[in-house]
């Protein structure tokens, strides 16, 4: 048997959790370094699988399987394809940079990193699982620690935010759980194995109902309108690293669930329901942008921008064609690193100015040129400027979507042009403008603080200039889904 690299990626943060648990709580540096080391190992592993993935062979690779409860087909079964590889990489990047930006956390450091690392165990697990039982288990692991992260280390109306976010997500999980059990029951295959379930035959009516249930269930995490309100409220209350994880990874778990479970197992249901989901997706895009334009809280702006951008992901999925799905996955990656960067920057600015109200900020560029530069760059990714990963993502989604939904696509292009309005509004209000005396004591990012920002920005630029590195991977996985759902190239 080959080296179990996927288990290695998933378990590294878990080992980190155990190690942190036995380190005395006064040894802050040891705790932080352990967290950084554990997540770095996962990051290195995730880079490795993206590089080593055999693009010619395609399909599921790095497969591991241990039967657990044989009678009902539950097994610890892992594998990654062209879609999950970039998601694992995204998780690795976001969690490692999340640990680095949390260096300055001083309250209950030990528990903080334990919770943060647990989240990543869940996320890695979701993206690697080939068995629905473990998929759901990991899915929940990636939800629950967030409650503690927000309610203990959060700010503002943190209890409301924590409850809201957790309950809404669990509401979605209930639908997902019902869907998974129903799949098990109606397939008659006596298994939770995704590949087997997707080969089973389902009545068209069953497909439609179950697809809808799963799509709405995963839709909560993927910010499908109108199930999205946990995001801005939760983000506003969450500590920086939790926000980065929420927007960077959690939302992608929802979209990934739609792709892998709902579309992958129920392609006929997808064909019937997706045109309606596409309508919700366009509402996401335009509505999110419009609401973002009216916000004054920095985090709400970024939060609603996620509502808009996740709409593009869902629109890409709704095309059910090869290019559109590739675009959706590219956008999942691109939005993940971009929004993680934005939240890291918001956290940085808040940490120094103690306000997130953009009306009170202003003129920061003179004191924080590096932070400004990184923010403008992430903003450009957000508005899809060529040369950043955001352009490739949006371009592929639009190309795929135009064939399937002409009017909706034009609206989506208009909606994503609105991104420029709120991004540049923030740049103008927060960073441009007269230099204020208030900000005389601000310090630009130190070399250490630059590391996570460089990683996140580097990813946006690298995959913007050399998108082939990711597209060559993604399109393999997207093809399999598109073929199953009967969608063509475009």
């Amino acid at each position, binding site marked *: 048997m080959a080296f179990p690299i996927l288990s290695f990626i998933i378990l590294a943060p878990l080992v980190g959790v155990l190690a942190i648990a036995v380190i005395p709580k006064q040894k802050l540096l040891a705790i932080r370094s352990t967290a950084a080391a554990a997540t770095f190992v996962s990051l290195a592993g995730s880079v490795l699988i993206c590089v080593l993935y055999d693009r010619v062979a395609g399909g599921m690779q790095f497969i591991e399987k241990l039967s657990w409860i044989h009678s009902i087909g539950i097994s610890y079964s892992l594998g990654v394809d062209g879609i999950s590889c970039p998601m694992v990489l995204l998780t690795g990047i976001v969690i490692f940079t999340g640990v680095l930006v949390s260096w300055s956390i001083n309250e209950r450091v030990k528990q903080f990193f334990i919770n943060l690392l647990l989240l990543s165990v869940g996320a890695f697990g979701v993206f690697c699982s080939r068995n629905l039982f473990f998929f759901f288990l990991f899915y929940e692991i990636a939800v629950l620690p967030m409650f503690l992260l927000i309610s203990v280390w959060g700010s503002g109306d943190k209890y409301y935010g924590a409850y*809201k976010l957790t*309950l*809404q997500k669990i*509401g979605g999980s209930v639908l997902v759980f019902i869907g998974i059990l129903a799949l098990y029951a109606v397939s008659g295959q006596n298994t939770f194995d995704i590949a087997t379930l997707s080969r089973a035959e389902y009545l068209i009516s069953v497909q439609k109902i179950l697809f809808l249930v799963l799509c709405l269930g995963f839709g909560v995490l993927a910010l499908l309108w*109108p*199930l999205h*309100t946990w995001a801005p*409220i939760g983000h506003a209350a969450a500590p920086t690293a939790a926000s980065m994880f929420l927007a960077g990874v959690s939302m992608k778990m929802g979209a990934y669930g739609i792709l892998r479970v709902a579309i992958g197992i129920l392609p006929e249901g997808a064909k019937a329901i997706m045109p309606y989901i596409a309508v919700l997706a366009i509402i996401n895009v335009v*509505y999110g942008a*419009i*609401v973002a*334009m*009216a*916000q004054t809280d920095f985090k709400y702006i970024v939060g609603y921008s996620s509502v808009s951008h996740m709409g593009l992901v869902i629109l890409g999925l709704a095309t059910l064609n*090869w*290019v559109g799905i*590739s675009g959706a996955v590219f956008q999942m990656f691109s939005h993940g690193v971009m929004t993680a960067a934005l939240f890291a920057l918001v956290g940085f600015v808040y940490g120094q100015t103690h306000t997130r109200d953009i009306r009170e900020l202003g*003129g920061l*560029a*003179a004191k924080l040129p590096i932070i400004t530069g990184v923010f403008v760059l992430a903003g*450009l990714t957000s*508005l899809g*400027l*060529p*040369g950043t990963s955001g*352009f*490739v993502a949006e*371009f*592929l989604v*639009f*190309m795929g979507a*135009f*064939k399937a939904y002409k009017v909706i*696509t*034009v609206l989506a*292009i*208009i909606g994503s*042009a609105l991104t*420029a*309005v709120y991004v*540049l*509004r923030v*740049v*103008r209000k927060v*960073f*441009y*403008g*007269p*230099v204020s005396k208030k900000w005389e004591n601000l310090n630009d990012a130190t070399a250490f603080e630059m590391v996570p920002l460089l990683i996140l920005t580097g990813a946006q630029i690298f995959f913007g200039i050399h*998108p*082939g590195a990711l*597209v*060559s991977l993604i*399109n393999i996985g*997207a*093809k399999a889904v598109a073929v199953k759902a009967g969608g063509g*190239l*475009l």
Partner: protein
Amino acid sequence: MTYVWLIPLIPVLAFIVLTFVGRKFSKASAYFAIACTVVAMVLSYVAFFSVLGGSSFHQAFKWFSISSFKVAVGVSVDSLSALMLIIVATVSVLVQVYSIGYMEEEDRFSWYYAVVSLFTAAMLGLVLADNFILFYSCWELMGLCSYLLIGYWYEKPEASSAAKKAFIVTRIGDIGLLVGIIILYITTKSFNFNTVFSTHIGGGIATASAILLFFGAMGKSAQFPLHVWLPYAMEGPTPASALIHAATMVAAGVYLVARTYPIFQASPTALNVVAIIGAISAIGAALMAVVQNDIKRILAYCTISQLGYMMIGLGVGSLTAGIFHLMTHAFFKALLFLGSGCVIHACHTNDIFEMGGLSKKMKITSWTFIIASLSVAGFPGLAGFFSKDEIITAAFKSGNYVIFALALITAFLTSFYMFRLCFVAFFGETKVKAKKAQEAPLSMTIPLIILVIPSIAAGWVAFSFGNFIYFKHPHAAEMNILVMIASVAMGLLGIVLAWGIYYRNWISDEEISRKIGPVHALLENKFYVDSIYSFLAHKVMIDGICSGFAWADMKIINRGIDGIAQLINWIGKELRLAESGGLDNYTLITFGCLALIMFYLLTLIF
């Protein structure tokens, strides 16, 4: 000709180096950027002359692909792109040399050069692009550079909001461009220019995609109704305005139409749209220029107006005339802007009525400026005369007499407002701000002197130009002596009138504006277009729709979801009452249920 790849890549190198280590070099960063652009310029001239010698070049690499959906990075050199290369590279070098003096006191000196280098790279890449995606990418990067340069003095609120406005308005145009590109791909299965043009495109699709592409061009080239950003863009440093907002980037829209001309030729409707929008922009902007007092704003409206001319040329079917005017305009407008930069540098004001008498204090600046003004006014023999005359002739020949008439009137207005500017700023009594004015340093005046040459002589190639540019088919400029006389007369009339009002003071301009009160108000308020947009953007969109949606999101959608939670909570509370803890209650319920079950079983039996 593989070296062509280096033309855009060398300025990219300058951008990267200056962004990361420019601060340490300060002044040296200018020399580095200039050296890089000079290399690009030399290579451009080499490419130009080999195209003149009959060679061409095309090479493409895969960028990324999904099966047969392929996106390439490719360059192609033909006569049109070769011409654009030398225009862009030459003006960029001159502007950068000029900027050494103009920008020397700035803190972010190397950042300025970094962005100008990136802009130069993007524009050179744009003209070399062999496909829509590379074209669009460079197009957007130019927009970014424009944003960064307009907002160069970001501490000034006017500059930062002008930058934002420029980016957003051009982005609105880009929506059309992108949709047009997508439609063309769906129709032809390719992004490559040659493949798209050689595929037959049906009439309706051709019209739709041509107009959508043109919408993008309207944003970039500041054509009505997307012209509003350009006058505000003058908040940026003047040399940047000269390069980006006068000579090169704003002409990219014209270049786009010229590059995709086969699609426009397939649709007479689309060509008409181009001509009409061009004519409206030409005369509208010229009218607004007449009442401006800010030297840069006058030039900005002049740019819109001249770009409108180019669009007229393209729209009435004369690619040659449009591109010819693009070339001559690039030189004399760059000269005008650089000249205005010297003036502003010397007087510390933009208001022409605070200057006066500068021709004695700043001889080189004044006289080069006046020559460029004569060129833009179409004075016989100068560059602008040939190109403008070609456009007006083409409009006449196409039979669009309305557009022809508008073009003629615009010619009159152009020479009037340009010489209003000249007489007020350079002649007459010296006002306070101009008292201490001195001629600019050599690094600033030498570019002016160099630019005078093409501003005079660039038109002399008129007769061979058409043959060169028009897809290599003979397409020489045609002359119509009557049209020529008419346009020259209009130009001279404008100069004489400006001379009479602003030099000899036959009649005070204040009196005129009183007499035509409502018209003057209309022009001063820019036909109320800016106010309408501002109302729509701020009151209707932000304060109305956006705030309304934001309110609804929290108060209706979010409350609704909270309501579900509260409902569940309430049900739980109510059901809890059933768990009273009293044994009698439980017994009652148990027996009740048992009775129901027995009743059910009995019904089964009987």
